[in-house]
């Protein structure tokens, strides 16, 4: 392009009528709420591509299926089989289906947590009114609520089925509510641990493997030790071992607080041990959240 040779260069800034946004701005609370909702929807693939819905929705279907069958058997064959309570207790069901729960948490935690760190979109989030701690806690809450829904849905199904089968309402409701508390604790523990692992091992494949290693290996180790210590006649070892897997830990808390049927060989047998279980649960949840916050403190936008 030829440059003009007969005009001296001048500069001028034109007023194009640009106006910044002057309307109302919602505060951090609204931002956090919207962020929470989006995170929750994303764990089930809503608001993302079709392929990301397959695994979580599939797992949800798979975890509801046995509950559906159990309800069917209960309602239809209650009198024939002489059943007067749930075939699989509310507190036992999550342990039976723990593989599905673990896979869910292992595959969704990286999607929520690792992606932002890996691709540095976290800098976009931190440049907004939402504070760093709010970001972390909201992400954790999204994952926790999503896990809670996964674990709780079949329990709700069992409860409704139990009511349909004319099981005593008062007793069932009490047991169900106890199981809901247990579910809250289990979801909190699982999501805390999974989020921590996902935030540390930023690559997605490694994060998934890491979460599974932590959850699966801990449960297998604990179950093995509990079985052997039970057979060997020293159940205390098994009770202590039960502290080291979220599944056995929350099951033990339910046994202690609500007298639920135990799903492990060596549930806490004394009040002291029961209190240790409760304390350990709180320690896990708060410790994971604290470690997560500490990890995010070193993230530089």
């Amino acid at each position, binding site marked *: *392009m*030829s*440059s*003009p040779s007969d*005009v001296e260069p001048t500069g001028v800034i034109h007023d194009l009528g640009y106006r910044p946004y002057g309307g109302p701005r919602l505060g951090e609370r609204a931002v956090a709420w919207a962020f929470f909702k989006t995170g929750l929807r994303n764990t089930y693939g809503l608001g993302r591509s079709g392929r990301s819905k397959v695994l979580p929705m599939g797992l949800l279907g798979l975890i509801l299926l046995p509950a559906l069958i159990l309800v069917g058997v209960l309602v239809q064959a209650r009198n024939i089989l002489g059943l007067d309570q749930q075939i699989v207790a509310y507190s036992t069901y999550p342990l039976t289906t723990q593989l599905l729960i673990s896979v869910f948490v292992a595959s969704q935690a990286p999607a929520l947590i690792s992606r932002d760190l890996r691709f540095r979109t976290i800098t976009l989030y931190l440049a907004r009114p939402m504070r760093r701690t709010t970001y972390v806690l909201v992400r954790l809450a999204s994952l926790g609520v999503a896990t809670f829904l996964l674990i709780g849905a079949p329990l709700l199904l069992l409860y409704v089925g139990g009511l349909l089968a004319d099981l005593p309402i008062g007793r069932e409701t009490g047991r169900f509510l106890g199981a809901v508390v247990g579910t809250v604790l289990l979801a909190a523990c699982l999501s805390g641990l999974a989020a921590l692992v996902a935030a540390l091992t930023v690559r997605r494949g490694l994060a998934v493997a890491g979460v599974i290693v932590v959850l699966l290996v801990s449960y297998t180790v604990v179950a093995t030790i509990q079985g052997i210590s039970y057979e060997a006649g020293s159940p205390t070892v098994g009770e202590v071992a039960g502290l080291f897997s979220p599944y056995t830990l929350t099951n033990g808390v339910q046994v202690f607080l609500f007298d639920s049927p135990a799903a492990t060989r060596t549930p806490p047998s004394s009040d002291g041990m029961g209190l240790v279980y409760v304390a350990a649960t709180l320690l896990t949840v708060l410790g994971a959240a604290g470690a997560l916050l500490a990890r995010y403190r070193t993230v530089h936008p």
Partner: protein
Amino acid sequence: MTTIQIDHASRWFRNVVAVNDITMTIGPGVTGLLGPNGAGKSTLIALMSGFLAPSAGTVTLDGEPLWRNEKVYRKIGLVPEREALFDYLTGRQFVVANAELHGLPDPGAAAQRALALIEMTDAQDRTISTYSKGMKQRVKMASALVHDPAVLLLDEPFNGMDPRQRIHLMELLRGMGAEGRTVLFSSHILEEVEQVARQIEVVVAGRHAASGDFGAIRRLMTDRPNRFVLRTSDDRALASALLADASVRGARLRSEGGIELEASDFGRFSEVLPRLAREHGIRLHEVTPTDESLESVFAYLVSA
């Protein structure tokens, strides 16, 4: 004398046609592959480097097909666009590894030669994760040159380079071309291509839009008239004033208001328009070029 022959090659991904019936010959010397973003340049380079099979047509190097043919990589050096490298290695270890994978008899010496060529000898013992973007690009070049290939394919090599690195790379490519190697690089910036390549291939929306000497195509593009739409406070007065200037080829008053203008010398016109508007006290509400983008330039070439 190694030539890449692309013969009626097309490549589609489901219902997106990335490369549409392109025929071209890339011979010795530096060739620039030019086109706007999304034109299919990367796809074309992937076809030429054996990482993609054409859905139709053939892509050959001296008559040999490139797809599923590992032996052909003796002759090809590839500098991919993506930044990822083996971060945990040092620059030297990376180039030596590449030399070893090529089966060179003395990988260390070849690596030293390549590193000296791209002037990375003082940083060669630092890990690649500590390198800047320009340094990573140069290490990629060293890994592509270590086996002395006859063909060099570079995908957007000037992306993110600062002016000094750009000059250095341009000199390097010119040198390679002068040695008789077949060098092809892609870019969407005219000026970059202009300074290095004599021969350019223009690709727009997957189609081969122009090819040949850079100077000739450039002249074609400046000869074309620029079209603008103006909305002013007094269309007729401004139009008649503009028509008096030599740089304006034609003006038409639109029924819905506004002037459709054809200018032939953009440089002169861009200075004339505001001056005339000010002299006649006419306010310019909107000046919209209707074919400013590179794409419309190339579209013009395609239709011509």
